[in-house]
């Protein structure tokens, strides 16, 4: 049971590296962006795992509650905004992929590189 408390961090490590693998080994640009979102989600998981306090509840102050423990609100604030910034940057990346596809007719990195060399 002792190591169950680290399970979140292990999943973080595995997801982080799965995302990185998709980014560095796949030639397809949309697949790379999907890998980037997995990478990003892993970081979100790391932060949110750190906010948990045993016996705590969501950091919304309850009127009249005495000695109520609350989880840490700070990581939540950081990740809340990061998620929305993440979708904004993802849409920018997708827009660039769409333009690349219109110019080159493909979204495979190796084919694009071949066309550039010719």
């Amino acid at each position: 049971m002792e190591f169950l408390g680290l399970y979140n961090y292990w999943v973080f490590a595995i997801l982080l590296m799965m995302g990185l693998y998709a980014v560095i080994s796949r030639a397809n640009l949309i697949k790379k962006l999907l890998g980037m979102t997995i990478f990003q989600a892993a970081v979100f998981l790391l932060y949110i795992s750190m906010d948990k306090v045993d016996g705590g509840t969501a950091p919304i102050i309850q009127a009249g509650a005495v000695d109520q423990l609350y989880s840490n609100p700070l990581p939540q604030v950081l990740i809340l905004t990061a998620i929305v910034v993440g979708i904004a940057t993802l849409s920018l990346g997708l827009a660039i992929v769409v333009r690349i596809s219109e110019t080159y007719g493909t979204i495979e990195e190796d084919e694009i590189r071949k066309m550039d060399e010719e």
Partner: protein
Amino acid sequence: MVTLFGVFLLTLLVITAFGIVRAQHLFVAVMLSGIFSLQMAAIFFILDAADVALTEAAVGAGVATVLMLGALALTDDRERGPKRHRWAPIVVVSLTTLMVIYATFDKPRLGDPEAPVHQHVAPWYLEETPQLIDIPNVVTAILASFRGYDTLGELFVIFTAGIGVLFLLANPSKRGARSLLPSAEAEGLRHHLVPRVVGRLLVPFIVLFGLYVQFHGDYGPGGGFQAGALISAGFILYALIEGEGTALRAMSFRVLRAMIAGGAVLYVGVGIAGMLFGGNFLDYSVLADNPIAGQHLGILLIEAGVGLTVTGTLLTVFHAFAAREQRR
């Protein structure tokens, strides 16, 4: 019991991620990424992050999936090229995974109240929020007031991304608003009975819930970011059912652009108003006679600004993708 459920969800998350990386068909990968986000939202909820769970569910499972599918429609939904294993990346990521896992043994266990992260400023925020700002939701208090500068910066990142997508995809000089009116194939799902009936029923309630989340963010989970994502999800559903042209008649590009800029201007304006009343930039306590009433007013206004910019940006991006598809 909750711990076991958490372990189960986290394991499912890893399996789903594995599916995303392996899937050759990009449509499958995008759908799996929607499921991935929903599982992530459930995990955030178990970990006491109600605000984050709401955002992830609305953004990740809703809007992101639609945008990804829009991009797939414009490019190619199959991964081409030889599917060969490259050993170098596999070795690198496996070694790094093992190293990171080795490093986690030094981390405090999940839920440890003595962890360093809980000793720094977090207790101060939890203790001082009732006195200084007097709203129950500490997340909103930090986001909008204590750390208003950070949120302003993030709002401008979203603003810039929205403008960037417009530069890349839309070309207003060549294509006026006229040509965006629905053509024959742009009628959405109007001829499909079930999506039409169920979707029409859902749209007003999604938007209403978005407005509730916007204005109730001081008291419960919610705020401008979540509300913006929910409201734009509602309008995207409307556009999918009725066709993009009809949705653009309800809320035109001009309105959306005004929302993107107006939200950012409102946020900065509240900050400058604080300076004019004799306080610091983004100091709301001088906005009203009573510092706490000033804080309430300031938080309400800047959350409205955030909601406007997020809604405007997400809907603009969606329409930019959709309009490009029609033109092909």
